[in-house]
């Protein structure tokens, strides 16, 4: 399934209960637009990892990479591509 469609459906059904999916545009700001708060974000990130079989590393996700469906789509594509290339990065070490 297309990434944006899957994420849109997840948000409509789990975060914004009762809203019709198509009203979330590709560029609708999810975090800065008040649609998803920090707890909602934990759920969304969990969903992305499970659904697309990707694993995020620290610093990869922030409000700039996850604020719109477009950005999420881009991030997941990048993740999938780098995983296919066998070049999945590892997180920085905290001293």
């Amino acid at each position, binding site marked *: 399934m297309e990434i944006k469609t899957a994420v849109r459906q997840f948000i409509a059904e789990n975060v914004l209960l*009762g809203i*019709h999916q198509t009203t979330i545009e590709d560029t609708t700001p999810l975090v800065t*637009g008040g649609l998803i*708060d920090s*707890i909602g974000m934990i759920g969304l990130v969990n969903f992305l990892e499970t659904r697309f079989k990707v694993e995020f590393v620290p610093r990869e996700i922030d409000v700039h990479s996850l604020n719109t469906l477009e950005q999420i789509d881009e991030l997941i594509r990048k993740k999938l591509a780098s995983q296919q290339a066998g070049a999945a990065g590892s997180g920085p*070490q905290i001293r």
Partner: protein
Amino acid sequence: MPEREFLEPGSDEPEGDLLSDGLRRTAAAMPDAPAIVEQDRVGENRVTSFGELFEQAASLAVRFVEHGIQKQDRVALVLPKSTDAIVSVFASLLAGAVYVPIHPQWPKERIEATLADCAPRLVIEGDGSPPRITDRETGESIPWIAALAAPIDIAVQNSLPRADAGDPALILFTSGSTGRPKGVVLSHRAVGAFVKWSAREFHLCSTDRIACPSPLSFDLSTFDIFNMAWCGATCVLVPDHSVWMPRFLVQFVREARITCWYSVPSILASMLEEGRMAQHEYPGLRVILFAGEVFRGADVARLQAAVPQAVGANLYGPTETNVVTWCCVPRDFDGSQPLPIGQPCPYATVTMDATSGELLAGGDSLMSGYWNRPEDTQRAFVNLEDKRYYRTGDRVSRAPDGNYLFLGRLDRQVKRRGFRIELGEIETALASREDILEAAAVAVEDGKMGTAIIAFVRTRSAGAVSLIEAKAHCARILPLYMVPDHIVFLDAIPKGSRGKIDYIALGKIAETLDHISTSQAAPNQAAPDHGDQDRSPAVHR
């Protein structure tokens, strides 16, 4: 007089009773020890020693004074919690000024309103390093201390103005019921009472590595930054992004070798649940403190099982009093009952209003008052036997063992994810949108999510405002943690016989909706395709 008992030995000298004195003393005693560890954007650690922190802060303070900053002038810090922000805190205090932390992610409108309210002389802001410093009156900018300046002269240091312990040190803005945030003014003495007590009680020292994910605008952050300075402990800044991925927080605690953690319970709960905290060991973690909201008994027990060697403690107190009571998690705590808020801290006196059950809190940690709001300040306090008490608005009872138990609120203030929210402020925000004629908000307890906020609105006509528009409107005015979880469109808001909003009736609707929504939350059950909102005759979500 309680305030005499708890001042440190040697406090007859002026040294020792200002929040900046700890830094001065520690920087002289152990200049090379790490004061702050901050992970930069590429994951490298930036370590600032006590010597560097003091030099930078003192040089900046000198610059402030040269610029004409007077004692008690406000310095607004619109900054993320960073090394630069902490330098700015101490620079303000060393200059005798008052720092006003403002969360940079607050909506612009709220930031501007807060600045207009506290009328700061200087504003320090910016995402990157170094931040920009602007004189709000003249528009002039003051350069940041770019590289580490040469050690500043003792004579110059001594020329810095010295505040009194009772003078304001910071102003924290919290949600206000009438729609305007209230500034809580806290003195050096008030914050110092809590810092010195917590240092002693939890044996904090220079080998400790303290982490507290709360932003500077939240009173919890007085714990890590001032205990760092007071005890010579290291303040390890929690990377911002990790709160979205609890397993990163857990990884952070492990890899950064945190010895003392202080946060709201919601964050600890997410670390236990999504972060699978129990799967790892934390040999160095010896103190876990939590405050700001109720921590479910079962989660406290899980935390204790996950980190068995750590001392856990529930700290209680609104921003206006900081921590006034506390309770250590008993070793045999089984989680079947909520943890009490406990017994008073030594610097605090607490009592209970016999009629209402309201907890009244007095003592050294009390706020000086609300900024610019004499009437609210007067209403906030009550005098009993010549002592000043803050009316917490929290309903409590007292157990036979003397511990206080939190029962709930006497007003419409709620806690969500540890953030304090006045429901009236949400209503004011919603009603300020064109086409929204009326708004009412209630909070319900949702087992999994904690506190959920449901707002009910009546619009000019059906469909005049969509759910997304209503939420986006809130997000333009309110911090994100105040945006309602659900917004319900009603044809009429239920009213009582005197025309007042019937919140009990709304609470009942909210609970039903919540039930409906959780049963609908199963994935892959697409909503019926009939437009923007599913409209039943009375309720449309």
